[in-house]
């Protein structure tokens, strides 16, 4: 991962050279990113002030997102996973600028040679960003305006982005409905005519209306019934393949994450504790939290009724996080160092980053599988 400082310097230089269009100053840092990289989030922070005291002044901050680094390559599905309150949703909303980050950089490849820093865009410059980046929400009931029919809902992105011809929009909406597996004649119906799964298809159609490159899916299937979940997962995967999309997939369900993603980033109390390609992460986790999280997932097989490894205690309060490694009070392997020093996210194996002082020495259990686990080929520290 390259240093963020270099980019800023470079950016300043380009800014002086070409003060042409609005938005220009945040562009033209294309070579700061490797060509396959679509999104690169660097040192992202989002603090929410805590008001209190007599005058309602700020007395502290909830560090909802605390120095998060992550990246998504073109055509890649990155899952952001963690328990409630870990900051995964806030992170995803910062990437979209649905929430304004406190600091950090969000580099996003908007064209072949164009990279913008999403974090620095002015409000006026957000519209072109959102043509390339869209969102799927968790609650299929709250994310569709009950007063508009599907044509208005799916056609809105087209309308506000310059497609004024009604016929043109009708055609495109019909096409999008077909794409997500709904009948085109549904476009005159209102959301109340649809079930949760169908609504989620509508939400997906709206997100795809402007041909985005990146789709942020915030718990996109967790509100759905089990039998419908699989339909939507299949649809998401199919669309990803057909349209060459990339997903930032925010979820708490590890089984789904394992099924859908190429790479996974695990968050705990506002920080990323481990990120790696899906297979090594699940079969040879390097962070005790990741390992415990996987052990806690109940297996849908009564014959594998393991004595689930219980993680003691509960998720730390992000307003008053513990010292050192935030996980140390619950970690069975914690040492004095863990209590004192905050571990940095470092690359322990190629592509496998972890924020744990003892990553090399621990041999943590992952998900079992038929073939011998990666543990045997493990590089000895």
């Amino acid at each position, binding site marked *: 991962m390259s240093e963020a400082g270099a980019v800023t310097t470079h950016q300043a230089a380009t800014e002086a050279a070409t003060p042409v269009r609005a938005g220009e100053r945040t562009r033209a840092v294309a070579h700061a990113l490797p060509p396959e990289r679509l999104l690169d989030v660097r040192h992202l922070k989002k603090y929410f002030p805590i008001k209190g005291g007599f005058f309602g002044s700020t007395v502290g901050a909830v560090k909802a997102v605390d120095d998060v680094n992550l990246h998504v390559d073109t055509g890649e599905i990155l899952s952001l996973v963690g328990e409630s309150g870990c900051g995964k949703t806030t992170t995803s909303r910062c990437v*979209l600028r*649905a929430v304004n980050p406190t600091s950090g950089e969000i580099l996003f490849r908007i064209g072949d040679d164009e990279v913008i820093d999403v974090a620095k865009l002015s409000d006026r410059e*957000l*519209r072109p960003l*959102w*043509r390339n980046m*869209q*969102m799927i*929400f*968790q*609650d299929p009931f*709250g*994310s*569709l*305006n*009950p*007063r508009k*029919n599907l044509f208005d809902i799916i056609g*809105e*992105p087209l309308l*506000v*982005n310059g497609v004024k011809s009604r016929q043109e929009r009708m055609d495109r909406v019909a096409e999008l409905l077909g794409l997500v*597996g*709904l*009948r085109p004649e549904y476009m*005159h*119906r*209102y959301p*109340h*005519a649809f*079930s949760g*799964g*169908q609504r989620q*298809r509508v*939400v997906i159609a*709206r997100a795809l*209306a*402007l041909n985005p490159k990146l789709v942020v899916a915030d718990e996109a299937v967790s509100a759905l019934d089990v039998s419908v979940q699989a*339909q939507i997962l*299949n*649809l998401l995967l*199919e669309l990803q393949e057909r349209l060459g999309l990339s997903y930032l997939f925010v979820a708490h369900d590890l089984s789904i994450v394992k099924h859908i993603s190429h790479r996974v980033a695990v968050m705990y109390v506002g920080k990323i504790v481990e990120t790696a390609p899906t297979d090594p992460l699940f079969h040879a986790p390097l962070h005790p939290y990741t390992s415990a999280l996987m052990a806690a997932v109940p297996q849908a097989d009564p014959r594998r009724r393991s004595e689930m490894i219980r993680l003691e205690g509960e998720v730390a309060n992000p307003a008053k996080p513990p010292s050192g490694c935030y996980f140390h009070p619950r970690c069975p392997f914690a040492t004095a160092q863990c209590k004192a020093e905050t571990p940095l996210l470092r690359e322990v194996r190629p592509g496998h980053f972890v924020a744990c002082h003892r990553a090399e020495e621990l041999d943590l259990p992952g998900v079992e599988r038929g073939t011998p686990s990666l543990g045997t080929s493990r590089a000895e520290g």
Partner: protein
Amino acid sequence: MSDVALPVADRAKEPSVYVTPAWKLTWLRFTKHKLGVVCLWIVVLITLMALMPEFFSAADPNVTSARLAYIPPQPVRIIRDGHLVRPFVYGVEGQRNQRTLKMEWVQDTDVVLPLRLFPRGYAYRLFGVIPTDRHLFGFGTAEQPVTANILGTDRLGRDQWSRLMYGTRISLSIGLVAVLISTVLGIVLGGISGYFGGWVDNLIQRLIDLLQAIPAIPVWLALSAALPRTWPVTWVYFAITVILALLGWTRLAREVRGRFLSLREEDFVTAARLVGASQGRIIFSHMVPSFASHIIAAVTLAVPLMILNETFLSFLGLGMRPPAISWGVMLQEAQNLQSVVNAPWLLIPGVFVIITVLALNILGDGLRDAADPYSH
């Protein structure tokens, strides 16, 4: 992926429901509320009275005649000698009591005054433009029209029914106009407060706190007392309206703000923002339609309050003043026990107030429930 199987409901149910817009569903829900529908009709009727009191009235409301003071109501009857006949009233005859020197009115069952529809009467301009002399009803024959006072007369011998019709115009319109001003104030300030938040929100909220802490009637009284006695009726009318509106907008503002705050957090609003919709579009295409029905309901509930307040002020002599006619002004005639005991029918305008306020309240509740069926 193939087309999704239709939910079974699609086949079982009339598909037209699926293409019914939300406001229509709200309306369908409202019409299930029978009492609400009845009240809607009452409100429509009262509004008609307010729009054309001249047509509904039987006599000129300002013509005084001391000779005809305190005639009790002459109820419309349809049964005479045990037979169903066309509607009529009995005539009355006044006799001066020699001891008390008071006029005493006696019903004369020999004089039958038939009710006639659309007779000619005093001339007026309908809606202020169309000259006509037709009225809804009258008594007697076409050649010999007779005045009869179905709701009796007051101290100055004026026909109460006719005065009530005129009073409806002023009382209802004061309520409406005051609420209109309140609504504009409330929506603008509440909207600003809710949408922008921050210190603007804080400032407006504190202002609302302050205004709500003030007991309204003394302040209204003081403001009305400040109106010069020499002002013409129309000025007083507008001044009273503004005075009522000045303290009345706070509740609406709170309501609007609350709606804005909760809508701002809705996913569909975020979604609209994320597809690049402008702020104006988000507010007017997504947020306002979402709470418009609530605002209509809140306004419907605010009108009766304003009507009651006008009645209070006028009753105490600090609101509308004669020769203007409002329900409150009419009730002033019944301000003390003595007048009520002598002529209880002077309280009839109060019954009108109650019916109007009742109907508007039930209507407003019905609308609110229809707009927000899951709120309770």
